């Protein structure tokens, strides 16, 4: 192995898959071998069967759908507000000076700590779930987008000025297109975090969703269901991540 030497596509795929194999093998080893009591950790096969039953008998697909819609809903609202505000902050320094200190402060307010308050304000319905995800995402998006737009190469802006661009042109024709790929990357990252907020939101005061199912399974001591639920989140997260990456490469061929 040499530092920074790239690997081929096939080797990359094989290595990535290999770790999953190792992971499942270890899991099978400790559970089938009896090293860990099945009350605490079910074996892979049992978990898989439980998963099948969840879909077949308990309409788990509905929970997955509910969770998915909450994440996407809260995230989209946060992006619709956060991205434009971040762009304006990155482009215009007085606007940044006005918002930045508060947003930096708000970013550290844990979204989960707002849950009791949000239940008080909005009840235990969908509004409250969306609000948790929105609060958890929006400040992160604003700050990341502002930094990305603000770090546009100075020379590109100067070159545009010498070509007759106006201040508005600079924003529209230099800052925005230049920041596109990085903004998309930032959104991909924040979407990942939104998944953790949604589960927390569903653990408290909820009657549907993956988080609710996990909480409900705890009452029944069904570790198989709990693990399968967590696993589902991982799979959906990975799928959305891949979709985002694929879309970015299509959208910004010049950057990849």
């Amino acid at each position, binding site marked *: 192995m040499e530092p920074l030497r790239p690997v081929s596509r096939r080797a990359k795929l094989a290595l990535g898959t290999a770790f999953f194999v190792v992971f499942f093998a270890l899991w099978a080893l400790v559970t089938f071998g009896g090293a860990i009591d099945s009350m605490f950790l079910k074996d892979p096969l049992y978990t898989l069967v439980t998963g099948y039953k969840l879909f077949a008998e308990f309409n788990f697909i509905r929970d997955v759908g509910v969770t998915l819609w909450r994440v996407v809903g809260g995230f989209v609202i946060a992006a619709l507000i956060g991205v434009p505000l971040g762009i304006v902050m990155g482009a215009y320094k007085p606007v940044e000076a006005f918002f930045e200190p508060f947003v930096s402060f708000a970013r550290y307010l844990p979204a989960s700590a707002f849950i009791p308050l949000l239940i008080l304000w909005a009840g235990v319905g969908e509004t409250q779930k969306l609000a948790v995800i929105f609060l958890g995402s929006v400040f992160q998006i604003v700050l990341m987008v502002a930094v990305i737009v603000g770090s546009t190469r100075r020379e*590109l802006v*100067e070159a545009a*000025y*010498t*070509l*007759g661009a106006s201040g508005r042109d600079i924003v529209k024709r230099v800052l925005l*297109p*230049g920041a*596109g790929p990085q903004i998309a990357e930032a959104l991909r990252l924040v979407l990942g975090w939104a998944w953790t907020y949604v589960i927390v939101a569903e653990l408290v005061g909820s009657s549907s969703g993956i988080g609710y199912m996990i909480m409900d399974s705890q009452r029944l001591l069904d570790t198989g269901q709990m693990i399968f639920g967590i696993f589902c989140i991982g799979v959906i997260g990975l799928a959305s991540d891949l979709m985002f990456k694929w879309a970015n490469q299509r959208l910004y061929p*010049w950057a990849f």
Partner: protein
Amino acid sequence: MGFLAIESLSRVFPGVRGGAPTQALDKTDLAVEDNDFICLLGPSGCGKSTLLRIVAGLDSPSTGRVMLDGAPVTTPSPDRGMVFQSYTLFPWLTVRQNILFGSRSTAQKAKELVARVGLRGFENHYPKTLSGGMQQRTALARALANDPKILLLDEPFGALDNQTRALMQELLLGIWEADRKTVLFVTHDIDEAIFMANRVAVMSARPGRIKSEVKIDLPHPRHYTMKTSPEFSGYKARLTEEIRIEAMKTVQMEQS
């Protein structure tokens, strides 16, 4: 008074963190006639780039002023096209789109210029797929497409290898010989200055001033074989001596 008049221009940069302010330019005067090709030659750190940036309108003088065609220069304008040392093509635009960026550029001009700088067949390439020389040729075409009154070049070939650099010099010289577009060209390369310019303005060490002006009486069109002629060597010996004194002053200043 010339077409471009630089009148007792000085620029002081405020000290960083309570340090002493830096005088980059001190009472610099320079007149450039229409259709002239002037090289600003000086050791690194002598303020020649600062001078060019002020002419471009990207920086403001502390005292003095710049006049172009009778009007004072205060902000960047498409009248003064610039090619930078660093690569400043917009990475999200193709070669053709880059050339079309300028406010006065037209599809017809872009097509002509692509042919003129030898980039036919690369119109739809993104900058990241081009070599350094091709990127700078595109940048030159982009500046020319705007039909500026004067072309400002800040060591445009400084990052290129020797062979590419020589070819780029011939290309630019050929374009100048055909159009006689007024050029102000900053360089620290003595050979480059003699080969390209009608007049070489030598700058002193910091604070920069025009120390002397040398008229280059080599006939046009110039051929690269001229670089080994006795006349060329004569100019080179003289300019080498002048620059050497200034470079030594700079080194002494940095050591004290």
